[in-house]
């Protein structure tokens, strides 16, 4: 659809896997930062004069 691959992540983390949770969150954050803000999916407000 045109969403960059680095923006979408799937993971299965048990409630007992706190360290995996931390790792995944770190990885996701880094990956999304690398792609930058998702400006395409922001509604542009109409400019009123």
């Amino acid at each position, binding site marked *: *659809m*045109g*969403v*960059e*691959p680095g923006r979408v*992540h*799937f*993971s*299965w983390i048990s409630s007992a896997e706190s360290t995996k949770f931390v790792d*995944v969150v770190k990885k996701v954050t880094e990956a999304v930062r690398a792609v930058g803000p998702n400006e*395409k*999916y*922001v*509604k*542009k407000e109409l400019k009123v004069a």
Partner: protein
Amino acid sequence: MQAYTEKMREIARRLLKECRVETVIGFRKGSMPMMNEPCLVKSIDDVDQLVWDGNCGINLANYLTNRTDKIAVFAKGCDSRNIVTHIIENKIKREQLVIIGVPCKGMIDKRRIRSMAPGEITEVVEDGENVRVRGADFEKSFPRKDMLQSNCAVCIHRNPVIYDELVADLVPEQQNVDRYEDVRAIEAMSPDERWQFFEDLLAPCIRCYACRNACPLCYCPTCFVDESAPQWVGKSQNPVDVRTFHFLRAYHCAGRCTDCGSCERACPMGINMRMFTKKLEKEALDQWGWEAGLSLDQRPPLDWYRPDDPQDFIK
């Protein structure tokens, strides 16, 4: 095509006369050329309204949802697969139905014909291999096989998969069809190109929801776009809202869509929203070897867990 029509009327008349069904769902001539409309025939007197030609592209499974009467329904290959899907999803019972199979030779693309005619079309007649188009001051003939709807041109299930009677002998299925050439072209694009492709594809959309209403899969009592608490998607024509509507609707059709083309046919703007559903159809085939509506005995992949379901995307 006349032979199909005659046979249909004969079957409909017999079923109504013997009281085997209360309603026959078929097509009648619309008020304009190439605009046949679905109709519900309840009396023998109205049986002669029924017609069949290359303009019966709307999916009749759409008219079965939650009905309680006994119904005879005419079913092309795609219709029959959607009827199977309806039965699997408990939207109709098999015992209520007399399915009259219609071996299909593809439906004709009214937009292509209109774009190739030099003026307003007043009559379209199909005679065998050709489509003759007449207007006030012109008459043209096109080879029928070049005028098929794009989904019919790549169809590999022309014959009904489930039926009680047939209106004609089964037709040969198309062989060696490349169903997903267009999807692969989009898959090969970069994310930015792809974004732009869908931006351009959906630009004419007026959010009339004709695609949703024509779709036999879209039978939710309240569609997510009509819901206001919570409001899942904005109601404006902002490109973000338009896109959200189209891709969410497509996701709801994943593993269920038979590429019948009703959505595209119903669209007043001629948008090919099948580019969304077809991608999901291809995924269902690649991931689970699944084609929707081929059997009453198999659960669709998305409501069933199997230990060997693909899960490489989960990290």
